[in-house]
């Protein structure tokens, strides 16, 4: 079988404006487990311009880093990234390629798989190895998280998956790890970029990004009014947390869409998720139910949010939240 010439695991280490995203370290941690099950090595592949702290990829588990650092890659033009990734994968033939299921990863990686004529599983929440067949067992949610599917790619190589950020935990960096950084010249020949970045507008309401936050304070319909979100912003600032919202709160225009957690918004997995006035429709739960600790504050004891909550307070959020702010300030 052709697959026998493919060896090793690759992690696409995504960066934005030269800063590596955490999902790269998370994938390296999981990738190391998979690599030892397959008795093979793990490499990171990193494209961009002026990328900081590339050696951190080694400290977090990479045996090798393929680094393509070029001014032409500064604006994350997807045509160029797609082309370069395809070229590197064809040259080095990894058997598995993992990438973060970020906005960028979910746009570029499917195109890479389309060109390579191989399988790609989207938005995985679990990865495992069938060592005998050298198959990657990919678990992904479907139907908004009501169903889980295990997917394999028996014949196509590499086996490719995008993985939700924050599903896997990164390992603490080990500065004594040894690894090799392989610098690759960017070869633009034969590729034209059909898109051009004209402007980037940062969302300033999102002072801490919900995908990266350790603590999230989320509000829902129970807040009753947009101005009541001020209370959540205050709670968030006491905790150093980000503010998120359920779909009804976004649909009401209380909070911008970039803060929405759930099926049609973002998936988060913080250490602590405090759901305030959120009933917990399944569409919301799929976006946050893997959080380490979930606190629910709601006056309806039958709200489904209490089924996933680690700690629940049944009560009037307009009383509970100010008390909580007060206690946290005086902790």
């Amino acid at each position, binding site marked *: 079988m052709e697959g026998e010439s493919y060896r090793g695991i690759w992690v696409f280490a995504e960066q934005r404006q030269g800063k590596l995203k955490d999902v790269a370290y998370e994938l390296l941690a999981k990738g190391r487990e998979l690599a030892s099950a397959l008795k093979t090595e793990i490499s990171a592949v990193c494209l961009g311009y002026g990328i900081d702290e590339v050696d951190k990829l080694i400290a977090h588990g990479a045996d090798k880093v393929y680094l393509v650092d070029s001014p032409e890659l500064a604006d994350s033009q997807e045509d160029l990234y797609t082309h370069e990734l395809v070229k590197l994968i064809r040259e080095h033939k990894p058997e598995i390629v993992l990438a973060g299921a*970020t*906005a960028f990863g979910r746009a570029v990686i499917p195109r890479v798989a*389309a060109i390579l004529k191989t399988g790609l599983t989207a938005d995985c929440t679990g990865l495992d190895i069938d060592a005998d067949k050298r198959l990657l067992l990919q678990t992904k949610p479907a139907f*908004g998280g009501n*169903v*889980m*599917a295990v997917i394999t790619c028996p014949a*196509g190589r590499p086996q490719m998956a995008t993985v939700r950020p924050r599903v896997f935990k990164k390992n603490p960096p080990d500065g004594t790890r040894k690894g090799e950084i392989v610098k690759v010249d960017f070869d633009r020949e034969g590729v034209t970029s059909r898109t051009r970045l004209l402007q980037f507008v940062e969302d300033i309401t999102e002072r801490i990004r919900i995908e990266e936050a350790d603590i999230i304070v989320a509000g829902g319909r129970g807040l009753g009014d947009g101005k009541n979100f001020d209370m959540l912003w205050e709670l968030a600032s006491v905790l150093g947390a980000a503010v998120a919202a359920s779909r009804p709160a976004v649909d009401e225009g209380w909070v911008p869409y970039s803060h929405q957690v759930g099926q049609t918004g973002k998936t988060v997995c913080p250490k602590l998720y405090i759901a305030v006035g959120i009933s917990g429709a399944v569409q919301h739960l799929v976006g946050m139910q893997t959080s380490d600790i979930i606190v629910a504050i709601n006056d309806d004891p039958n709200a489904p949010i209490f*089924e996933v909550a680690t700690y629940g307070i049944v009560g009037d959020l307009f009383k509970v939240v100010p008390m*909580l702010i007060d206690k946290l300030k005086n902790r």
Partner: protein
Amino acid sequence: MNIIVCLKQVPATTEVKVDPQTNTIIREGIKSIINPLDSYALEEGVRLKERCGGKVTAISMGPPQAEEALREAISLGADEAVLICDKAFAGADTWATAYTLAAAIGKLGQYDIVICGRQTLDGDTGQVGPQLAEMLGVAFIAYVSKIEEVAPQRLRVRRMVEEGYEVIEAALPAVITVVKEINVPRLPSLRGLARAKSAAIPVWTAGELGLDPKLVGLSGSFTRVIKVFSPQRTCRGEVLQGELEGQVECLVSRLKDAGVI
């Protein structure tokens, strides 16, 4: 402007169950709808036509009953619709789906833009749009939240990223996927409903698209679903008791003990 909108018919609910005997999803008695995010794609296509003139063609790959979704698309403003339907297409993964859609778009002839929803409600992959663009060999932009300007051979859009949004210009033709922020879909008009009733919807098979049956459906798919199951949602929680103030104190100390605050 020739606008193509890709639609999928999906179950009206995500609250589906897995049959523990057969390991398949129980679909009986579940109504079908146009995938919600695809209705934003359709609406944007119709708005684009209203702005620039031209024609909106809705296409869908699916079983014979997917024709209903295409009739609904006509009632919502699509001018024409084509159903891509063949037993050979069953079980397609995103690669085989994109491959088949690309062949159908090739048969439709000249086009300026293909609009898809960000992802479907059932498969949840979001991969068909980018893979389709690649197979058509045209520009691709994901997560479009606004079409700012359309000029001949050029498109300027807002694309959502985690940190905010980007303004991107693309050469046409292009494939874009849209997020729900882009518009508020309209309701069907009476005229649209009448048109939908009488519209002829051609059905294109693998043979008519000149496709090798080995490259479509399950046999053309690189991935295999080896298992489906319902996730276990274990109730691990503790509802705090007592006076509200005491509960809040208790919560703070639990969170401190857990080391999260």
